[in-house]
């Protein structure tokens, strides 16, 4: 029983991480229907910039005096950096292809992904980078169950971002404009919505979320690596689709389900087949509900 609860906690944490990445993924998808292969790389870049700033602050000695401030600043700077990166990437590699076949942008996104991960490798070295911070390393202990502060933080952050994003998308004018751009770009222009700005904004927010996820992962696992974006990218994509791609709450749900299935699959059935279980659940769900758990049944605008 104890180990079951521990596995449940593990599952929620891993699911939270997937959800965090999937949120950005699904936002970008929701607006321009692009499978952004490079999202995983934004995530990795976020992790790297996070560690760069954290080490920088440590080097300056601020880390001991104002740890929370430094951490917040690193988060903010990394998110800004990734937003900057993503907006530029969108302008260079995706925008000129917006009117072309959808798969053209997909291929370009793949090129960006390869380019960015190798760029990170070349600028940051082929070795893992350790997170300097010992922040939040402790945890609560109940008998043999341990809950790290970081696990709590990951879950809280994911929850908070979910709420914030839902508010942004459903309660603000910008959110409405995002949804409108997603549905009909020409018409959006006819009601004075600059779709380029909205798309840039979406990319910025999506990449910012990815950066936040990157730092969380770096803190939680203790290191970052140039190719860390690839697998979580696929998992986050799966999570986003499972939840109904374009749907923010769905992405969260999808992330949690995939995380849980992986942990329980590894914990109780077999470690090497855990991804198989995740994919079988995915296929099963999509078989009975071809548009994902929360997906709407209007798919005429897709493909």
């Amino acid at each position, binding site marked *: 029983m104890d180990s079951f609860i521990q596995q449940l906690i593990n599952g929620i944490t891993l699911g939270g991480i997937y959800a965090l990445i999937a949120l950005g993924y699904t936002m970008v*998808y929701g607006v321009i229907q692009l499978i952004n292969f490079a999202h995983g790389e934004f995530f990795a870049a976020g992790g790297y910039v996070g560690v760069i700033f954290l080490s*920088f602050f440590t080097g300056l000695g601020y880390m001991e005096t104002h740890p929370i401030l430094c951490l917040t600043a690193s988060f903010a700077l990394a998110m800004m950096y990734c937003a900057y990166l993503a907006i530029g990437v969108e302008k260079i590699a995706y925008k000129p292809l917006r009117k072309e076949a*959808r798969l053209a942008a997909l*291929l370009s996104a793949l090129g*960006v992904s390869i380019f960015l991960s190798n760029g990170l490798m070349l600028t940051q070295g082929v070795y893992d980078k350790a997170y300097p911070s010992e922040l939040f390393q402790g945890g609560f202990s109940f008998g043999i169950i341990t809950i790290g502060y970081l696990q709590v933080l990951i879950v809280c952050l994911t929850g908070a971002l979910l709420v914030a994003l839902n508010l942004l998308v459903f309660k603000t004018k910008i959110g409405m404009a995002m949804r409108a751009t997603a549905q009909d770009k020409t018409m959006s222009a006819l009601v004075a919505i600059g779709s380029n700005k909205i798309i840039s904004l979406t990319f910025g927010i999506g990449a910012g979320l990815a950066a936040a996820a990157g730092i969380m992962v770096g803190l939680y696992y203790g290191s970052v690596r140039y190719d860390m974006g690839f697998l979580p990218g*696929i998992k986050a994509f799966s999570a986003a689709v499972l939840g109904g791609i374009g749907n923010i709450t769905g992405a969260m749900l999808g992330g949690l389900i995939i995380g849980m299935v992986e942990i329980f699959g590894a914990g109780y059935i077999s470690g090497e087949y855990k991804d198989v279980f995740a994919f079988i659940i995915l296929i099963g769900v999509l078989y009975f509900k071809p548009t994902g758990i929360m997906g709407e049944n209007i798919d005429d605008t897709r493909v």
Partner: protein
Amino acid sequence: MIQEFKKIWKQYAITMLWLLGLLWPLLGIHPDGTLSFKQTVNVWSYIFAGTFICFIFYIINKSGNFEFFTKPVVNTSQKLGDIVQAMPSWIWKSALLIGAIIYPILTGRYPTDVVINVLLYICLGLGLYVVVGLAGMLDLGHIAFYGVGAYTYAILNVQYGIGFWVCFPLAGLTACIAGCIVGYPTLRMRGDYLAIVTLGFGEIVRIILNNWMSLTNGPNGILGVKTIGILRPVMENGLTFEIFWVKKLEYFYYFALALAILTIIAVTRINFSRIGRALEAIREDETAAELMGVNTFYYKLLAYAMGAVFAGFAGALFAARMKFVSPESFTFLESVMVLSMVVLGGMSSIPGIILGVIALIVLPEVFRELESYRMLVFGLTMIIMMLFRPSGLIAAKRKKMMETKS
């Protein structure tokens, strides 16, 4: 010249500044709490110099200042092209064929090896073309069928000692069955939902290959796969046959070439057949196709099965050639690469896809000299190719498919 291209210059300048801003945090902020600019500026100036030269050439070319050079080239190629166009297509085709046949004789081992890869990937790419290009179903797990074909031959050969020519159709068959298994549950899905499910299937196949120790020997792979054996008539003491193992790369090349040509012919036939038209109808509008009496279920399944068969054949040949199979050859990235070949080629013309395959197999080889920068440049090339030829290297005549509805 500067005035004319003011906009492009401006964009270029902004891009370079953006890049500088991008590089600095990665290179200029140090863990000891110091900031530096030297390294960033160094790296940046290299990039700047490189891109600037390319850019100048691009501008000069665009403004027509290279005409003294390009014009004759274009003219001659135009003339050549006209001659080619004027020739009956059999001449053109046989010229290509002769070129393909003498290629290994003219060149060395390494080009032959790379071209064998190209030929195998042509089979894969054309198989995928049936699924993606014709039927419009986004498939991110195509490499799984390749894997199934390769493992079918490897297992049958190593464990049961069955020869290549028996296993070859069996590899196609198992891949076909795998295709149907994948196809069946996915037929209800469309677009990206389909993509993720095929991705899932591809990964499931890879993970099974990696973990089913008793059958596939897991990550160790299967060693000692025999190459193709053919019966060769021997004239000594009457007419007898002996088995001749195709060990030399040059000989093997011809088998790959034959398979590729067969695939090209088969896919061309499919393309212009009833099946091809039905698949295209499904791609353009599934509902309408169904209303017109196209059995979409059957045809979509058929598309999967056919795509898988070609991949399976290619897989068997791959196993025979490597004499070794391991799950590393069948990763998700390979699937994406095959898809990229199809997309890069223009998605709906067979020569285009062949060109896409050649580009994506040969380019990483060309970039081998760059060592660690190899994949970086490759990624960049992919982006640039897409930006300059967004509808593929050879754009399709009917390019309506898969467009975003505005």
